[in-house]
């Protein structure tokens, strides 16, 4: 462990005092003079041509200012800009029940709602399909004209010689798995407030986690130059990927503001959050793993059908992430992937915490457990044998600069007593192990660009103090706490000496956004570089004052002095005053560009590339009630490699949140769809997420780790820890009752059914 002054301390979140007092402002808390409210009318049909929309009666209602439809913004967009498929409001036809067809602006929400009722939409209902496997066969359902057989995209990759390796393997196991349709269920519904100033400049306050892509999309859909638009992000009530894509609330607020001349706020109801969705892709997966007698993995063959719902979203990216995820955290010398992302008439799926990783991880870790048993090995030994170490390069040319994955496995196993318990607990009680990893940022932007992915500006003066400007957006993960800590460490001041301005496309320098666990690593590098730039300038002046060479100076706790000999000391802010007197304003910028690694000639192989990776291993203990089928997760022992934690308390929070979120998906979370495509449980009453009484005991350890490529050694911690959760639970259930579950969620009904079948055999 390195000796840091600020890094590694569990400081309270900078925004926590305002949040506990109820003073923190989220988008829906904002008011502007003359503000009006927008509401969206949604389709009751899952697939239908829009024949006609009549809204005169809505406009006649006193207090209604404007009505817009898809025809008012016919420009398609998509987060993957090469394949735009989405609209602010449906154009020509609707592709899922709940899709927006018109939007209203009115003086208050009640009037807007009444106006929605007065809008008449004439539909010609089309046949619809809700299952991705069926969708591939249904010639009578054409969701998008360009997508033959409803297949949005098919991706194939092969590395090495899988057929040969499988033929030569001592043991080959093949299984099919299915995962469920789950939602992020962040607590704050999407909200957007748009305002056109008299000079035509548009400001959008939004609950987005990616202001930059919202900025681009507003420019595209409204046909305004980006420099006439500002996106500003107040507090965000959680995102988990769901607020990464542009929502129609944001576009409708802007379009209605343009139309009415009033600021317009659109805040979703909870049911609309489910309609916007962009949650995890349900996957139909077949995986084949070949191993040699000693447990060495020889080859993986993976076929994945992803249920994309109605639109493109992050689809292609998620598809190739599922491909990338089989190459780590174990050495896989031969791998083949075939993936198809398929359209269905349901709310669109997209990015959700650990995107593309959680589903194949469930399959792979379940299978490794069974393979180990088949070989008469401990599942722990098999994993340890294949686990990657620092400096590994996958067959797909992904370089892993740093890994303490083995240490994660060892720690989780030792702390939990896994070896003593596994296979030895009484019927109904079980213990399971799983490993996982995730990227710490991406190597590429979604559109072709060479610009840095993150940048930061630090301005220091005797009036405002030290101000850090970063485009990185705090969505609750804590970047507004962690980035000032990085700056403080480098500058040698206290963390609370630094003021942060973040998440604003006008006020802060460029940052890609809060996704792909990229902020601490990527934005952290930019912040550190900016701080180094301040030091370099400041020390030149301080050196003169102190009579010491500048390259010998350091700053600790706000005092600048020579690191080699005791002597005169200069206060940081006094040095700043001297600098400004002599040279003028003091500021510095930093930026970060990840290595642009990839693999030429292999489709999709740039996806999954990351400057570094975080790892996690978990041992989970469960109690299965043989009478009711209910699974109680008793304890999760987690050990994670996030490099050097900048703020350990925040890391723990990410780990604990990941475990509980993953547990919900493993055991009960699932959006149910009616035969005509309506969501049956689009509420937090019927879509169950874990409550405080459901949580297991959690023992999490941050293993000793330092990534030399990272800012103060820090890697991701927000998405790696969710990867092992589901398979560790599935493996524990298998240990408890001897049944391997291949479909999520593992509900009491499925457990009772399996126990019954087992008894009959």
């Amino acid at each position: 462990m390195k000796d840091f002054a600020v890094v590694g301390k569990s400081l309270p979140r900078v925004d926590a005092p305002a949040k506990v007092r109820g003073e923190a402002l989220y988008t829906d808390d904002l008011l502007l003079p003359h503000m009006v409210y927008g509401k969206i009318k949604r389709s009751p049909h899952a697939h239908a041509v829009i024949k006609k929309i009549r809204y005169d009666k809505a406009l006649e209602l006193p207090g209604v200012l404007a009505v817009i439809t898809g025809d008012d913004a016919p420009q398609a967009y998509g987060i993957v800009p090469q394949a735009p498929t989405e609209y602010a409001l449906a154009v020509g036809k609707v592709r899922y029940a709940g899709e927006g067809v018109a939007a209203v602006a009115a003086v208050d929400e009640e009037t807007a709602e009444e106006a929605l009722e007065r809008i008449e939409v004439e539909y010609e209902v089309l046949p619809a399909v809700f299952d991705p496997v069926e969708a591939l066969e249904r010639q009578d359902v054409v969701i998008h004209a360009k997508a033959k057989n409803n297949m949005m995209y098919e991706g194939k990759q092969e590395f090495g010689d899988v057929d040969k390796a499988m033929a030569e393997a001592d043991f080959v196991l093949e299984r099919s798995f299915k995962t469920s349709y789950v939602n992020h269920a962040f607590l704050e519904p999407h909200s957007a407030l748009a305002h056109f100033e008299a000079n035509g400049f548009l400001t959008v306050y939004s609950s987005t986690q990616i202001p930059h892509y919202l900025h681009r999309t507003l420019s595209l859909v409204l046909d305004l130059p980006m420099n006439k638009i500002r996106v500003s992000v107040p507090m965000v009530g959680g995102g988990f990927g769901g607020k990464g894509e542009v929502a129609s609330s944001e576009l409708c607020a802007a379009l209605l503001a343009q139309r009415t001349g009033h600021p317009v706020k659109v805040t979703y109801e909870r049911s609309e959050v489910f309609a916007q969705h962009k949650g995890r892709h349900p996957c139909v997966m077949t995986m084949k793993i070949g191993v040699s007698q000693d447990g060495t993995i020889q080859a993986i063959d993976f076929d994945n059908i992803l249920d994309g719902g109605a639109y493109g979203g992050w689809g292609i990216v998620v598809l190739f992430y599922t491909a990338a995820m089989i190459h780590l955290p174990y050495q896989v010398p031969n791998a083949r992937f075939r993936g198809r992302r398929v359209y269905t008439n349901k709310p669109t799926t997209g990015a959700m915490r650990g995107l593309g990783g959680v589903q194949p991880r469930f399959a792979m870790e379940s299978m490794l457990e069974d393979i180990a048993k088949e070989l008469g090995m401990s599942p722990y030994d098999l994993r340890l044998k294949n686990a990657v170490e620092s400096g590994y390069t996958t067959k797909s040319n992904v370089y892993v600069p740093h890994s303490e994955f083995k240490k994660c496995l060892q720690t989780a196993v030792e702390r939990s007593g896994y070896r003593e318990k596994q296979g030895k607990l009484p019927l109904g009680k079980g213990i399971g192990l799983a490993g996982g990893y995730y990227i710490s940022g991406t190597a590429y932007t979604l559109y072709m660009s060479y610009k840095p992915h993150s940048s930061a500006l630090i301005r220091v003066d005797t009036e405002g103090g030290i101000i850090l400007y970063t485009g990185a957006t705090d969505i609750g993960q804590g970047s507004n706490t962690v980035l000032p800590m990085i700056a403080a460490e480098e500058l040698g001041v206290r963390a609370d000496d630094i003021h942060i301005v973040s998440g604003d496309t006008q006020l802060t320098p460029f940052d890609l956004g809060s996704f792909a666990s990229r902020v601490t690593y990527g934005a952290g590098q930019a912040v550190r570089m900016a701080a180094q730039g301040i030091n370099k300038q400041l020390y030149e002046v301080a050196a003169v004052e102190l009579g010491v060479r500048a390259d010998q100076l350091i700053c600790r706790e706000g005092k600048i002095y020579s690191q080699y000999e005791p002597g005169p000391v200069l206060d940081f802010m006094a040095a700043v005053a001297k600098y400004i007197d002599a040279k003028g304003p003091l500021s510095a910028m930093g930026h970060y560009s990840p290595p642009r690694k990839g693999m030429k000639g292999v489709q999709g192989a740039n996806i999954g590339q990351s400057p570094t990776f975080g790892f996690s291993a978990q041992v989970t203990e469960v109690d299965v009630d043989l009478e009711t089928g209910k699974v109680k997760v008793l304890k999760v022992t987690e050990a994670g490699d996030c490099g050097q934690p900048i703020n350990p308390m925040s890391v723990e929070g990410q780990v604990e949140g990941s475990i509980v979120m993953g547990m919900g998906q493993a055991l009960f979370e699932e959006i149910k769809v009616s035969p005509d495509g309506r969501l049956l449980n689009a509420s937090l009453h019927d879509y169950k997420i874990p409550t405080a009484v459901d949580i297991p005991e959690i023992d999490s350890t941050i293993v000793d780790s330092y990534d030399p490529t990272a800012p103060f050694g820090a890697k991701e911690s927000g998405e790696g820890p969710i990867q092992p959760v589901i398979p560790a639970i599935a493996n524990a259930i298998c240990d408890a009752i001897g049944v391997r579950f291949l479909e999520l969620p593992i509900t009491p009904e499925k457990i009772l059914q399996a126990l019954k079948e087992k008894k009959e055999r």
Partner: protein
Amino acid sequence: MKKLITLNINGQDFDLAVSPRDLLVDVIRKKVGLTGTKKGCGQGDCGACTVLMDGHPVLSCITLAVASQGKKIQTIEGLSEGEKLHPIQESFVEQGAVQCGYCTPGMILSAKALLDRNPDPSEEEIKQGIAGNLCRCTGYKKIVKAISAAAEKLGGKEEERVR
């Protein structure tokens, strides 16, 4: 047709014109302007809109404003004394029980109601006490810890007073 009502919120009377179907959460947020009370579901499922009414936690998104007259309503803004945070608020900050913060006001008020009726709750009782407040960020562990720490702080205070 609007009706004139008086709501007592955080010890202050507010005269308000509301329609009979206006919900307490909307009146508190939009008419009184106290936006610390959050709306996460609008159906009484998530607990983000929790306020205290005569000391009891109430879901303000399924409570009519007109039915809230004559009660003492406490929102999150009424918990701290000036600059000084309430011990529960303090513990939430110190223990890292706040991430996105959207569930926090409701969570803290449920915790206050719990500690008012049970000053020394077990871990299980704390979990039961906040079972109606959903949080998606923290996994609840640090929230439970914060409430437990707050109970200690509050208990300590009482002992001092007794002495």
